[in-house]
């Protein structure tokens, strides 16, 4: 399936989904006017990919600086999808990067990880 590459905008994240390699990445900030317009296509591509990914390993890096509440909702939907995929035999590794001094992003990572039993969730503190 075709890769999904979307450049970041002022208020939406950079998307790099390399499906062939099983490497996915969301990076930057997310507080768009309409979160469903931004996350709809991302979610659809992810859904299609995991449906055919049984037995494969997926690494998904989240390197987000800030996201608003409607983006948080969209992220939760993605995590639920990944959890179901992991339950169904896809090996899913999520790396949640956050700046070491940023308690807000650390807490979001911890909160999201609580719901994930079959996904390997790594909280990764970075400098700066």
């Amino acid at each position, binding site marked *: 399936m075709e890769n999904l590459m979307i450049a970041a905008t002022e208020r939406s994240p950079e998307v790099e989904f390399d499906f062939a390699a099983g490497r996915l990445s969301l990076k930057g900030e997310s507080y768009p006017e309409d979160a469903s317009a931004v996350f709809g296509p991302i979610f659809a591509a992810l859904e299609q990919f995991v449906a055919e990914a049984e037995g494969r390993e997926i690494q998904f890096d989240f390197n987000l600086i800030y996201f608003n509440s409607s983006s948080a909702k969209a992220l939760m939907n993605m995590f*639920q999808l990944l959890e179901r995929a992991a339950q169904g035999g896809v090996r899913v590794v999520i790396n949640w990067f956050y700046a070491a*001094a940023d308690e807000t992003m650390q807490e979001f990572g911890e909160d999201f990880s609580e*719901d994930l039993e079959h996904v390997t969730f790594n909280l990764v503190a970075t400098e700066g």
Partner: protein
Amino acid sequence: MTIPAERLAPHYRAFKGMLDERGILFSFSGYLSEGILYSLGDTLRQKMTLDDTDVTTIKKVFSVFIEQAQNIIRYSAEKVLGNFGKAVELSSGMVTIGTENGRFFIVCANTILEEDVPRLRQRLETLQKMDKDEIKAYYKEQLREAPDEKSRGATIGLIEIARRASEPIQFDFERIEDDKFFFCLKVSI
């Protein structure tokens, strides 16, 4: 009210002085757009960074600012809509950010329809009574649930605001027309 030219400076200095005395960093009143939200938010972060505000506080203030401004854009009862090549939606309201007693405060205000008052009041009262852990649990619960279609994500936005606040949120409603109220929400961080 027309101000004579020779009184312009004192007049506007008094106006600005009134804001300065209240510790206001900046205040915006009028038609808000997503473009203004981005620019104000960016300037706010730059100012706090220059003042050596810690990262977590910057994040909290910024987050409350964004949620409040997006609430105005979505729910203000005073909107102008149009289409000149692209769809434009402008919503009237006010956002004020300042410091008092060593804390940041963010106030947003806008007009809302009377029919929307009871539901908003009930949501805010619920949040006001909750402690930090309850707010956090409520946030997670709402995040897991299917979106409430009519509110376009309002519930989770208000919970996010309450979650970042350092003391219980304050709000007030005042009737301004037969079917409209002035609503304001104050958050301290």
